[in-house]
């Protein structure tokens, strides 16, 4: 596949067949922009793997696999440091992806979902030669499609399981989870909040329903955002809006779910759809986030709202 030719006034390569056209529906970048994006996202994935495995060590401390995970943690940090240098990034991704495979085997079936996502993204980063414009473009297309499909399916799953149309899931989460109840308390009347929080879990518990139009709207917006916004990433005209809206959306979800590792990773992937400057300028914020999470893992700083 030679992609030297581009349509006038467009960054989309002159597609030769339906597969090519589909692959680059997510947008294509000029060579310098793709180089910048690949460099930044690779660093973020490698650092994310190292920090998260450091954080997870505490949970492994009482397990027989602790020594393995200490070794893996060292490996991830070596990969993260080596990956900072462009000539070693791909090799670092190979090492980190192999480390994630070992991690998955050891942790199964308790694997976090974003660990699968991390493994998939690292494997893609390892698979392509970053010096080649064409391969970088293909790598970015792959990463963007993964983010888009994943976000879209999160909405599809909520529809298929059917707990959002009348707010059952959110009501249950508020009843069971302090984080959700504190975040969503403004959505529902105080007496309803009190009733939900007083429900004792177990057979017959409930009803997990709230009679509040605002609450119902929020519940339905949860999956509608995931169904509507990711497809808007496919169109050049709506792409920037979709990126901005998805960032707000992810921030809102994280305010309830507080899964900062997943949040940072998915934000990095969403920013691949934006002009390269967005990712470059936000890079220090990602690093600040990961430094904080590292210090938190070491017990040197207190927990913050999102952790």
């Amino acid at each position: 596949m030679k992609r030297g030719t581009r349509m006038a006034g467009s960054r989309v390569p002159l597609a030769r067949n339906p597969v090519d056209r589909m692959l680059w529906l997510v947008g294509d970048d000029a060579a310098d922009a793709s180089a910048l994006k690949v460099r930044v996202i690779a660093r973020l994935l490698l650092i994310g793997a190292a920090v998260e495995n450091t954080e997870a060590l505490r949970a492994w401390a009482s397990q027989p696999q602790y020594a393995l995970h200490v070794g893996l943690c060292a490996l991830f940090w070596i990969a993260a440091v080596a990956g900072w240098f462009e000539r070693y990034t791909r090799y670092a991704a190979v090492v980190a992806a192999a480390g994630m495979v070992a991690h998955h085997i050891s942790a199964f079936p308790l694997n976090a979902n974003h660990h699968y996502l991390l493994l998939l993204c690292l494997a893609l980063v390892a698979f392509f030669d970053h010096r080649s414009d064409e391969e970088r473009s293909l790598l970015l297309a792959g990463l963007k499609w993964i983010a888009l499909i994943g976000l879209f399916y999160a909405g599809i799953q909520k529809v298929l399981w059917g707990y959002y149309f009348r707010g059952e899931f959110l009501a249950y989460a508020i009843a069971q989870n302090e984080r959700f109840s504190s975040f969503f308390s403004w959505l529902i009347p105080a007496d309803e909040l009190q009733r939900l929080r007083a429900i004792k879990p177990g057979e017959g518990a409930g009803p997990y329903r709230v009679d509040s139009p605002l609450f119902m709207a929020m519940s339905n917006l949860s999956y509608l955002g995931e169904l509507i916004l990711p497809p808007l990433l496919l169109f050049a005209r709506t792409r920037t809006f979709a990126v901005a809206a998805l960032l707000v959306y992810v921030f809102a979800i994280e305010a309830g779910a507080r899964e900062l590792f997943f949040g940072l990773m998915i934000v990095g992937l969403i920013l691949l759809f934006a002009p390269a400057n967005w990712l470059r300028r936000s890079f220090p914020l990602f690093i600040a986030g990961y430094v904080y999470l590292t210090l938190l893992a070491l017990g040197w700083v207190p927990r913050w709202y999102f952790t």
Partner: protein
Amino acid sequence: MSLGFKKHAVVVLLVLFAAWPATHHVLAQRYQFDPWRFFGWAMYSTPDPKVEIYAAEVYGEKARPIDLANSPALQETKDFAHRRSILGKWAPPHDLAESLMQHYPDSEGMMIQIRRLVLDPETATIKPQDTVYRFDRGSREPRFVKVH
């Protein structure tokens, strides 16, 4: 590896990646594993599943309930409940049954009831779904499995 091969590899990967969540949904319903697990993008789609385990020694046609909370098999039961809540029917109670029969050597068999507590979208209340396994001493496979 040629660029053409890599492009096809990415396309195959993306097709599989797109097909998996739909497959995951079907499998999660059929085998009752935790929808939050296994990369199906179904986190926050359902309440996290709760599983309770009950057991009874079998003597002929009679069953004598076991107080698992005060049983020597308490830890094994807890571990199994945790495993079952994640893996669903992919975690059958055969090992637990064998272990219980060792702890209760006089029993002729063992009944294990697995209760999944699920949120019923119609009533918005927690409803039980029971699966009962009946094991005979000396046989690893259950004599029957009943789903209520």
